[in-house]
């Protein structure tokens, strides 16, 4: 740490605020730490590996909690504040645990023209939640997002890693059935 020790008081207040899960131990395996060092050595400045390592952290811990930010900060000799400002700048880092699946519907221009509002309304109805929320059973996080650049197949959505194209309400129903 170049800016003092990890702040236990921050962690305690975060836990009180319900922002992190005290039961989870945040640390990478030895193999993952090796991968962190490999990534850091690729870049002219080790900090270049921060986004890739945050992707790794999210895959490992499910989301980027304040504790995960502090942990990653120690790996980069950065202040947790610097990691926090990076995590909060980007849309793909989740700061709370998302559902087991993420359905992100594009609501930009071409998808809008092709009926995205109807797709979004259908999902609200089927899932019983508004965009930005997660179903109570933790199955699906439902988001609306900006252009995913698959406008030739509008309306479309990203479901986890996959692009789902030319959506219709029926296709949405089939997709949802496949998400367990």
């Amino acid at each position, binding site marked *: 740490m170049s800016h003092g020790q990890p702040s236990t008081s921050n962690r305690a207040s975060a836990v009180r605020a319900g922002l992190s899960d005290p039961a989870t131990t945040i640390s990478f395996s030895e193999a993952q730490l090796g991968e962190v060092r490999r990534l850091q050595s690729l*870049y002219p400045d080790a900090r*270049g590996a921060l986004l890739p390592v945050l992707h790794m952290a999210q895959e490992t811990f499910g989301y980027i909690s304040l504790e995960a930010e502090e942990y990653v900060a120690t790996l980069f000799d950065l202040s947790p504040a610097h990691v926090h400002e990076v995590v909060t700048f980007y849309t793909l880092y989740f700061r709370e645990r998302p559902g087991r699946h993420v359905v992100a519907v594009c609501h930009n221009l071409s998808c809008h023209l092709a009926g995205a509002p109807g797709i979004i309304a259908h999902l609200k109805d089927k899932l019983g939640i508004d965009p930005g929320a997660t179903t109570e059973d933790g199955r699906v996080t439902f988001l609306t997002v900006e252009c995913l650049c698959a406008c030739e*197949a509008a309306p479309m959505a990203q479901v986890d890693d996959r692009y789902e194209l030319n959506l219709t309400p029926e296709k949405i129903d089939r997709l949802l059935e496949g998400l367990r």
Partner: protein
Amino acid sequence: MAEIVLMRNFSHPDSHTLNAYRANGGYAAWDKAREMEPAAITEAVKKANLRGLGGAGFPTGMKWSFIPKTHTGPVYLVVNADEGEPGTFKDRYLLERDPHALIEGMLIAARAIRCTLGFVYIRGEYVQPWRRFSAAVQEAYDAGLLGRGFDVIVHRGAGAYICGEETGLLSSLEGKKGWPKIKPPFPAIKGAFGQPTIVNNVETLCCVPPIITRGAEWFAGLGTKTQGGTRMYSVSGRVKKPAVYEASVSITLRRLIETAGGVSGTGRLKAVVPGGGSAAILTADEIDVAMDVDGLKAAGSMIGSAGVVVMDESVSIPEALMVLARFYAHESCGQCTPCRESTGWIYKMVHRIVDGRGHKEDLDTILDVAKRGAGTTICAFYDGAVGPYISYIEKFRSEFEALIPHA
């Protein structure tokens, strides 16, 4: 239609593999370029009239020549694969269907600028294109094409439109939030990690191998006087066959819409976004325009990323502007006050107009705020937002007024 250059390999089912790429003449350009003097490569790209296809349309060879001749430290090549301009999807096709064309273009560009390390910054949402491209990079390493004087790092973004802006991208590559940097210094002087850096778009670099194998004159002859080549037009919205179409940069917008099957919906054209969400809108009377950098500039718009969004007569222009205004409000990085504040307030105003709650002075307020803010920010993001704000309202004012009580 003009010759197919960029999409020449797309129909082959294994076009993403090294074997298929080589079988179709791939890496012959690199074999030729590695025998050429670096300056001769840059000269060929200049003569070819290749202009950047990511948005700004800057002459590529000239950009390469800005690397200081006296610099003795590292030089970096950064590929902008952070495709995100609304209405654009061409780079996704190149990454998935012809990744080796990009790698070959990088090898040649790297020789021209004397660079030993390249980065490919792929938007975080592009998971499949990232996997495809990473596999191709591995193939290129295994075949000894990479790793012998030039290395490539594939870097995933994490969701932020502003990282498509070249200096925002560099900040992000350095492990920071994607805040654009004040220019000058331009990246060619001081870019990634403080070193001279060339940032090129995916499609731009994919043009380089054909320029080397078939010659600068041939490439220049495919286009207009001031821009060579063909390019990939992403056509979507209300057309019968939305898809990516390759055509000479001299094609007119009218012909391009016909190529995409013509207008769908009512079949009657109302307006077209010619170059991605940030381009000023054109009316149905303005489509006899050449789809190159200078043709669109003369028409008061821009070719940008060549994302064409077609709107038939049933489309509500105020609603279309509301969708784009929401996008700019969401994606403003927050660094510069005029952009951060205006994008938010303008979205609220367009939203209330569409909801039938507009005030009669709203339209003039939006125009005033848009015009005063343009040119006052660190990067071109806000100027890109201003294009739609002004053009949608000025060209379709009566449609907005009809929604405002007592206008």
